[in-house]
């Protein structure tokens, strides 16, 4: 499967947006060669500010720019943007509903060798806890570009989580992203796998393996965690009677929690969860970590089989 980097796509899309709209301003906290905001910095040096290693300052500066009419993209690694700056996200962006787009890279454990200080696995719980925030995790580079374009035109605070590693391309060119509308990647009737980010490709792989065993799985890319497409969840629960949620995040507060809250209220069905549980990982190669911590197509396959038994 062809692969591409979501963060490289982000950087290039920012330049395209910067050409279209002079009100777009980009902030970074000294990691622009990694977040790829460096492309924007080169083309629009007057509208790019390197805030140094002052992430909290950066988020509040972004708020001041947004309050003055700018569309602000602020980038650094997820652990710094979200985990370090929660109070700034809350008071400066969420409460006043300001138009700042946090596009952070190096989400999840696939950051790999840098280890647990750099593994961002609590971010979705934190951001989904903030009223008014839109939270999106694109599944590939094509979707990432679309998400960034939509974020630039939609009003209000956004959190977009990108990965460090390249991710498999699962969409054709010309794919059109709709915020808050889940994408059914594959139809199916026996169970539904709801996934986001890098887990969508793994869910598709698992569905292929299961199909060869006569199990017909639906696969949904739930790219928008907030607002959650509850109708898609209810439909999947009603039509397939079982759900597996797969995410590169802790068990608590992420996609699994949000889907379960919806099914519990609207249409309770057996569910299984593929995630990191309640623990930190270790340093290692991305693929090794996914194997060790149970985030593979095989893990999804087994969860589907267990959930079907409980129907």
């Amino acid at each position: 499967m062809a692969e591409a980097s979501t963060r490289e796509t982000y950087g290039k899309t920012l330049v395209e947006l910067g050409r279209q709209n002079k009100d777009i301003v980009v902030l970074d906290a000294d990691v622009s060669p990694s977040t790829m905001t460096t492309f924007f910095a080169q083309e629009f040096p007057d509208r790019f500010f390197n805030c140094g290693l002052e992430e909290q300052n950066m988020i509040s500066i972004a708020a001041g720019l947004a309050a003055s009419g700018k569309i602000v993209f602020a980038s650094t690694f997820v652990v710094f943007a979200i985990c370090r700056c929660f109070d700034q996200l809350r008071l400066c962006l969420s409460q006043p509903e300001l138009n700042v787009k946090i596009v952070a890279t190096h989400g999840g454990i696939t950051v790999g060798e840098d280890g647990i200080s750099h593994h961002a696995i609590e971010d979705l719980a934190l951001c989904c806890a903030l009223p008014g925030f839109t939270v999106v995790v694109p599944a590939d580079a094509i979707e990432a570009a679309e998400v960034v374009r939509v974020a630039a035109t939609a009003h209000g605070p956004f959190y977009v989580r990108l990965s460090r590693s390249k991710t498999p391309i699962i969409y054709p060119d010309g794919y059109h992203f709709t915020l808050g509308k889940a994408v059914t990647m594959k139809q199916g009737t026996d169970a539904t796998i709801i996934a986001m980010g890098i887990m969508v490709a793994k869910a598709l792989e698992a569905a292929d393996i299961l199909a060869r065993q006569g199990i017909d799985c639906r696969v949904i890319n739930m790219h928008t965690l907030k607002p959650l497409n509850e109708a898609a969840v209810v439909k999947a629960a009603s039509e397939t009677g079982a759900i597996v949620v797969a995410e590169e995040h802790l068990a608590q507060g992420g996609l699994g929690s949000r889907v379960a809250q919806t099914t519990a209220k609207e249409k309770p069905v057996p569910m299984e969860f593929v995630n990191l549980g309640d623990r930190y990982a270790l340093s290692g190669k991305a693929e090794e970590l996914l194997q060790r911590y149970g985030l593979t197509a095989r893990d999804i396959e087994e969860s589907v089989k267990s959930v079907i038994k409980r129907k």
Partner: protein
Amino acid sequence: MAKKLRRHVITMIATAGSGHPGGSLSAADIIAALYFKVLRHNPENPHWADRDRFILSKGHAAPILYAALAETGYFPVAELATLRKLDSRLQGHTDSKFTPGVEMSAGSLGMGLSFAIGVAMAARLDSRTYRTYVLLSDGECEEGQTWEAALSAAHFKLDNLTAIVDYNGMQLSGWTRDIMNLEPFTRKWQAFGWYTIDIDGHDFDQILSVCQEAEKIKGKPTLIIARTIKGKGVSFMENNVAFHGKAPTWEEAERALKELK
């Protein structure tokens, strides 16, 4: 006018039954000077693009800001009586969503200077000539983010930014010098690259003249260290830490209002 604003503060907080009188009273002369003399603003058009911006970083001093906004015509003076009440536009700490004239939601300390930097940057990007003023407390200079902002405002050479510290020397539980000493305060800001001016924060004319002086400084931001007295104007509140975050009783409020006649 500062006295009138102080009277509003006492009445508002006594009516609400909670709030922070000390830090509102210490800032009264600064706020009065800004809203009645310094700021170019238009209360009938709070979103006027070229208005000077005033950002209250010490969000617990909301009552003194509300008093000034009401007296300059952003909303009716009678509305001050709704402070902290359910469905009031006057929230306990400032909230930019609800109150005309409030530029920033505040209440968690240490963020206002950063926010002001963003506002000042936007002026530069849009070639607008408005000035950005931000009022900090001395206590909130204990927050690390204030010093991140201090570094970056100087780094970005934001000479369209004036920060004022309401240096009343006290915070919630006592004297700042005992809790977390900030001194040598002026020298710290100078070392961070700021133009600094020390003044008596209750001297109206001094406040006006240093605001003018700041406009002439090029290439660096200005910090006005306004030496003030917490609870200024009410004898039993002055330098009394008990009135940092406690409302006066009606009897105390009456005594205070008599002193502020």
